[in-house]
């Protein structure tokens, strides 16, 4: 009689453990298979010299040492960081502005605007690349033709072939594509703010700009942080857009780490060296994400 409840409790907790591990197991198995195992293997590869066929040779830190003097690889890393940071900055600021403005129009209009502003986020990068091939094409492109129509012929460029313009063009495309996400997320959390918080500030005669900067922005900070981090991670994966728009050109001017990596591994069969690039890149991404988290986090407010 005395032991009965204890046994039952143990039985329940045993069953509970079984159920919860059954719930967790598939997800964790997939993650181990496609993130943890390959990442660990990548780490091992980065200390080897391997052409994909013969036996891999351990070479210690040589791959990393070579990276220190490889100008092309370093250029790639800087390009990746440049694209990620400026694209994210632009997309988050523009997205916040759009959210602030969409908040001020009527509900029905707003729903329509949101749908359209979010559209580019949905487009596959290959499609975005082709769209902007139309825009940037030097003879037939929208941009140059538009400049000619308004009489600014001297501003026309061979946008994607000139060293001075190519990176900014890619940044512009990234901003165009991603600002809808910040708009959507920020708007959604602005919508959840109670109307009453605006009353006192309105009585004090605060303008909408002041309200937005001092009242709304601090309150939706966690959402802004989330969309900034997400946008950053998306923009760091700069393979697709660069591949479609320029393929890394002219020369290696717009080459990013992933493009360089794929070339090194699959065209030049230097798997170990490419793995080292991947490791450094992964570390840089995590570092930048951590910094952004740190800078934007601060205290959160309840309402």
């Amino acid at each position, binding site marked *: 009689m005395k032991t009965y409840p204890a046994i039952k409790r143990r039985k329940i907790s045993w069953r*509970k453990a079984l*159920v*919860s591990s059954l*719930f*967790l197991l598939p*997800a*964790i198995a*997939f*993650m181990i298979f*496609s*993130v943890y*195992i*390959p*990442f660990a293997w*990548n780490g091992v590869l980065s200390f080897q010299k391997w052409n994909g066929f013969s036996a891999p040779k351990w070479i210690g830190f040589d791959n990393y040492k070579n990276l220190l003097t490889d100008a092309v690889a370093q250029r790639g890393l800087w390009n990746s960081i440049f694209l990620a940071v400026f694209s994210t900055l632009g997309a988050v600021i523009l997205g916040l502005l759009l959210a602030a*403005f*969409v908040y*001020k129009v009527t509900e029905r*209009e707003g729903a329509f*605007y*949101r*749908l*359209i*502003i979010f559209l*580019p*986020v*949905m*487009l*596959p*990068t*290959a*499609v975005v*690349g*082709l*769209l*902007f091939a*139309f825009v940037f094409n030097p003879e*037939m492109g929208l941009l140059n*033709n538009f400049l000619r129509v308004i009489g600014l012929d001297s501003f026309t460029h061979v946008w994607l072939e000139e060293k001075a313009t190519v990176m900014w063009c890619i940044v512009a495309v990234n901003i165009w594509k991603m600002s809808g996400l910040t708009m*959507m*997320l920020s708007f*959604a*959390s602005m*919508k959840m703010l109670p109307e009453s918080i605006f009353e006192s500030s309105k009585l004090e005669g605060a303008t909408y700009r002041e309200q937005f900067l001092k009242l709304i922005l601090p309150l939706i900070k*966690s*959402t802004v*942080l*989330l969309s900034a981090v997400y946008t950053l*991670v998306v923009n760091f*994966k700069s393979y*697709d857009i660069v*591949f*479609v728009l320029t393929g890394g050109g002219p020369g290696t001017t717009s080459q990013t780490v992933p493009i360089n*990596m*794929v070339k090194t591994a*699959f065209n030049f069969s230097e798997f170990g060296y490419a793995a080292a690039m*991947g490791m450094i*890149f*992964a570390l840089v*991404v995590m570092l930048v994400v951590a910094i952004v988290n740190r800078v934007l986090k601060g205290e959160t407010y309840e309402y």
Partner: protein
Amino acid sequence: MSTRKNCLDANDRKIRLFSRGFIWLFILLTVYPIIFVLQTSFKKTSEFYTNIWGLPKIWAFENYVNAWSIANIGEYMLNSLIIVAIVLLVTLFCGALAGYALSRFHIRFAELIMLLILLCTMTPSEGVIMPMYLMISKMKIVGTYTSMILPYIGWGLPMTTYIFRNFFNTLPNELLESARIDGCSETKTFILIATPLMLPAIATNAIFLFVGWWGELLWATVELASSSMKTIPIGLVSFSAQFGTDWGTLSAAVCIVLTPLVIFFLFVQKYFIGGLTGGAVKG
């Protein structure tokens, strides 16, 4: 709403006008390239060179026929649809289960598991694709649907699980407790009570996943480089490399690719906004 409208003062009206102006400008920038491609898709390429801006004089529907047959868009789209559909179903299922367990089961190492999952979301695929390729080729499934589906599921799951967990965290405890008191087991509570409530979270996740995988290019390039099986983005890129100056057919191909996306989005967008406001995506 109507009371708010009545008390709009001049200042508010000015803000609204300015907002509208700014938004329209951005929308013009967003939509014009798409309209441009849509209208180009109905022009013969010869007409495109003489008439860039205007509507097509002769509607060239054969562009669509050409894109479908020459560029093999139909076949690639089917490949992409099969892959994305399976990835979506499995990811949503596993992610919902894991998210529920992490949020509701009081697991001992829940925090640690969550940390490991968040680390996954921050690991760029660049850090894993090469060994992934080696694993896939060891498994002798290069160029098959499975070789695309397995990694996609694993790469999407961390974010999906995270969003689901946050969503379940916002569900009121009483709702699930009452079911338990009524004698439901954990599994039963999940199926009967939690599942119907999660439509918004499912929609949010589905959109993120669909957007991510429908156009994925890096893994597809590596994996399908020497295979006859192609997904839509790969097909488009190689088509544009071959027929780069055949603007009409190229535009038609782009429009065909966009159609399922637009349909999908119109279906789920109603829930999507709900999912965002309902706390599914809250940091």
